[in-house]
């Protein structure tokens, strides 16, 4: 069936093209996503037009990427892989539980232990194996969709780990992202995560939290965002 054939079936079909091009206003997005979940006509049109937009992405004149770009990415990736492999499988990688796909067969307690192992490895790497600083536990606030979640940030020196329980799933096609607030605007981090089927997660905060006033968590599209697209559901004030 072509898009023309099902045009009259839904008055909101006119929003599919701007949606697929990323051109809906922020306030229109949520209601249109809800509409899509209920409207087979718009979903069909979305599937048809999405394939065109996917091709548009590949239509740009080919420009050689600077070699420094790959070098910088690989440097970070190799360091991260070394740490993850030292600590075990997916120690601080996002969980697949969020998408309801095949489970990994490790319990949250095990994941937390592995993340702790990464923290220890990081402490050794960054601190040269010196005696570990005292841990400070800071309780955070949950709001919005995460109301009722329990949040604690475990800080040792400049390193911190966020422990979450009773968290809702971030939603289909979405992932949680950690943000650090030093000045006015939150800065993105590489910490993207899902939660277990029980709503738990242990998240290693990348880099240092020295000078950070607040740690925030928002739900973002898969792959994360460079600026928050939704209100924070978790906030921890470091003060």
């Amino acid at each position, binding site marked *: 069936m072509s898009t023309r054939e099902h045009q009259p079936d839904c008055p909101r079909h006119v929003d599919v093209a701007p949606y697929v091009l990323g051109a809906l206003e922020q306030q229109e997005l949520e209601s249109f996503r809800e509409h899509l979940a209920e409207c087979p006509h718009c979903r069909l049109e979305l599937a048809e037009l999405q394939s065109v937009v996917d091709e548009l992405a590949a239509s*740009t*004149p080919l420009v*050689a990427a*600077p070699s420094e*770009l790959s070098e910088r990415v690989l440097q970070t990736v*190799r360091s991260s892989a070394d740490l993850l492999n030292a600590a075990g499988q997916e120690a601080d990688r996002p969980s697949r539980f969020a998408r309801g796909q095949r489970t990994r067969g490790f319990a949250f307690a095990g994941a937390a232990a592995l993340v702790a192992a990464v923290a220890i490895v990081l402490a050794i790497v960054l601190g040269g194996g010196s005696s570990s600083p005292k841990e400070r536990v800071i309780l955070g606030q949950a709001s919005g969709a995460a109301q009722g979640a329990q949040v604690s940030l475990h800080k040792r020196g400049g390193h911190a780990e966020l422990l979450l329980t009773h968290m809702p799933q971030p939603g289909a096609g979405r992932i949680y992202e950690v943000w650090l607030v030093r000045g006015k605007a939150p800065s993105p981090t590489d910490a*993207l995560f899902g939660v277990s089927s029980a709503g738990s997660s242990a998240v290693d905060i990348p880099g240092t939290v020295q000078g950070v006033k607040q740690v925030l968590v928002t739900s973002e599209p898969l792959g994360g965002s*460079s*600026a928050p697209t939704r209100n924070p559901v978790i906030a921890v004030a470091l003060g």
Partner: protein
Amino acid sequence: MRPPHTYSEAMPLLRRPNSREKLRTLADEELMGLVARNDAEAFEVILERHANAAFSLAYRICGTRSAAEDVAQEAFLALWRSGTHYDRARGSVRTWALGIVHNRAVDSLRRSGAHDRRRVSDEGIEETLEAPERTDAQAIEHATSHEIRRALAELPDDQRRVIELAYFGGFTHVEIAQMLDTPVGTVKGRMRLGLQKLRSQMRGTEALGA
């Protein structure tokens, strides 16, 4: 062009250290299985294959090399961090990667403010991968991107313009309506008609190529 190995053929490779040459024979989807197991070398091959396309898209949207580098770097690190979430049923690795690049680039553009936003044009963007430097895969990429650009160029101007302003310019339909002094409904209609025509043209090309 799909590399020759099937997933089942690739499995024995997963049990021993991966040499770069063996990794290069694997399809993207198979490499992502290794990336999910923290294999940095597999990710390096993904990066080799898609860095140019990712940078090109980021450059087209951001308009400066430095912003494009930042966006592409963020996108690839996000890809590495969320590699376990790759689902082949939802599209190719390339589509997924370019989708992340697009989102990040538009976010970056919107943060920089509407007045600084680049108006969509190919001016100043030259193809720096000259023919003798291209690999076979890059030559296919180039031919494909050329076909799509030609299809885009054949659209009526008013339809092409709204699609480019939205997708490469990062403007919302309301902003485009204001810029073009055109009703919002008309802008949405042009976007839809333009995408439908592109789809028909691309299907025609596929049919001819089949």
